[in-house]
């Protein structure tokens, strides 16, 4: 009986600690979102209370959408993130397949060469990247951002995907070869569909830093036409620092897309990590 009681008190302590930390983790985002729906007066008088019929107001959202730039920034972020993600997954999977499937001279060297980029941040090359982009006339284009993010994402993608590709059965691929399938068909039609969970894991790890990045948009593409939502929100805050309604609404809008994406991918993410992708 004492054992049972001890296990109950232990599980109570576990829930207490996890619950407390959950509150700490969620509180700031919660605070921003509830206050974005309140009048200016209520934001200052009682920041911790929920909006009620008296204090409810959408004035912040109206102000954010008035100019219409926010939609535009959103579109830029979406284009950059989706295209970068597509190329990281495609190029990364192709290279991972070559490295894990074929034996050739330089295989080990190429693997190490690509793995180097997992540890060394691309940011340190910024000075020369900017020079390169100026020289090629790509400064202030979304192409510049996409190129940088593809280069940044490839190392981790190759590393994780080749771990998974090694697990795809050789018999299957050889059966395909006997049936006369070419190497490209084997890759696109046999192997890629089998490693879909791994692709989802890589997608999450690649997507979050790209969507949230401030450094490269600030340095490579800070013109009005190429601003991403992160850079736009940052400068919006700078301009409207006293207009709390608008700032809180802008922040709430910036939180939303990542949360939605996370909810979609979270199952895959956990499965990918626990499957030993990130050892």
């Amino acid at each position, binding site marked *: 009986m004492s054992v049972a009681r001890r296990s109950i008190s232990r599980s109570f302590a*576990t829930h207490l600690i996890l619950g407390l930390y959950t509150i700490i983790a969620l509180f700031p985002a919660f605070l921003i979102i509830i206050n974005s729906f309140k009048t200016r007066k209520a934001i200052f008088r009682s920041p911790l209370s929920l909006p009620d019929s008296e204090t409810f107001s959408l004035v912040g959202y109206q102000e954010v959408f008035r100019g219409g730039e926010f939609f535009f920034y959103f579109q830029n972020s979406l284009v950059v993130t989706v295209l970068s993600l597509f190329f990281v997954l495609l190029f990364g999977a192709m290279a991972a397949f070559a490295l894990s499937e074929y034996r050739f001279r330089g295989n080990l060297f190429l693997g190490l060469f690509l793995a180097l980029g997992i540890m060394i941040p691309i940011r340190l*090359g910024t000075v020369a990247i900017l020079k390169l982009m100026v020289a090629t006339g790509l400064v202030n284009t979304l192409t510049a951002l996409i190129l940088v993010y593809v280069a940044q994402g490839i190392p981790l993608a190759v590393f994780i995907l080749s771990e998974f590709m090694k697990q795809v059965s050789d018999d299957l691929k050889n059966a395909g070869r006997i049936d006369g399938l070419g*190497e490209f068909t084997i890759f696109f039609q046999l192997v890629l569909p089998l490693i879909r969970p791994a692709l989802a894991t890589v997608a999450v790890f690649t997507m979050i830093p790209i*969507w949230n990045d401030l*450094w490269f948009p600030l340095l490579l593409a800070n013109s009005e036409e190429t601003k991403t939502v992160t850079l736009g929100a940052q400068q919006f805050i700078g301009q409207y620092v006293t207009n709390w309604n608008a700032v809180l609404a802008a922040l709430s809008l910036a939180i939303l897309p990542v949360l939605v994406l996370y909810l979609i991918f979270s199952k895959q993410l956990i499965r990918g990590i626990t499957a030993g992708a990130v050892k």
Partner: protein
Amino acid sequence: MTKAVPGKKIFRWHIAVFLLPAVVVYSLIMVLPLFGTLQLSLYSEVDSKQIFVGLGNFMTLFGDPLWSGQFWNALINNIWLFIVHMCVQNPIGILLAALLSSPVLRFRGFYRGAIFVPTLLSFVIVGFVWKLILSPLWGVAPSLMDMVGLKSLFLPWLGKEAYALTALSLVSVWQFIGIPMMLIYAALLSIPDEILEAGECDGLTGLSAFWKIKLPLILPSIGIISILTFVGNFNAFDLIYVTQGALAGPNFATDILGTFMFRTFFGFQLQLGDTHMGATVASVMFLIILVGVCIYLFGIQTRLRRYQF
């Protein structure tokens, strides 16, 4: 690559096609600029002409009073940032992961998801939210502290030279704790039940099972989160930039290598940007990270025993 494996004398084009896009993009946009930056740090510009100065820029950075004061300040602040992460983020991350992996736990998915949420948010949001919460003007932090009777302890931490860096380090810990939590959680889940049951037969349960069985088995993962923290911290920039601006105030108290490199490269207020000194700072950061990664790869990782289940 040009030579096929013995027995097959034909050149296998498909291998080259599979590898080419990744290798080309990666080499052109990442590897070459990294070496380009290292090279730029060895030159200087005089009368709009590039001249080779060897390690001169590094001498200036370490020795010239105009530069060295700021550089050492940024480096020391950066080390403090790393220490706070190692002492706060990783132990709490391990604790949360250990609690999450307890055998019968309800709402596991909810807790795990909630703790990971801050990691998904951009620095712009994180920085601004915490600036608002800690602001004496808005008064969320003081009124929360009032609830537990600690109001007298409230200070405008972000504005005080003595506390600003530690406060921001803790905000960064709050943001990134999801990463060690997830990786350790995955490592704990991969420990086979037989080992834990064998421990139980020998009387190891609960806490002693954690210290004597699980902790030694997850040491390689702790090594990985340590090196990830190291690289992340010595490459950090965004949080400081969005909360304190490029000047990393108050009075450079929160200046780290990332913000220092940004100011050097792009200039600020009256000082003009300097490509070559910017490249020099980036090269120093590169060397620091490289040394850290080498210590990890050759000094720590090879000594940790790996267990194959």
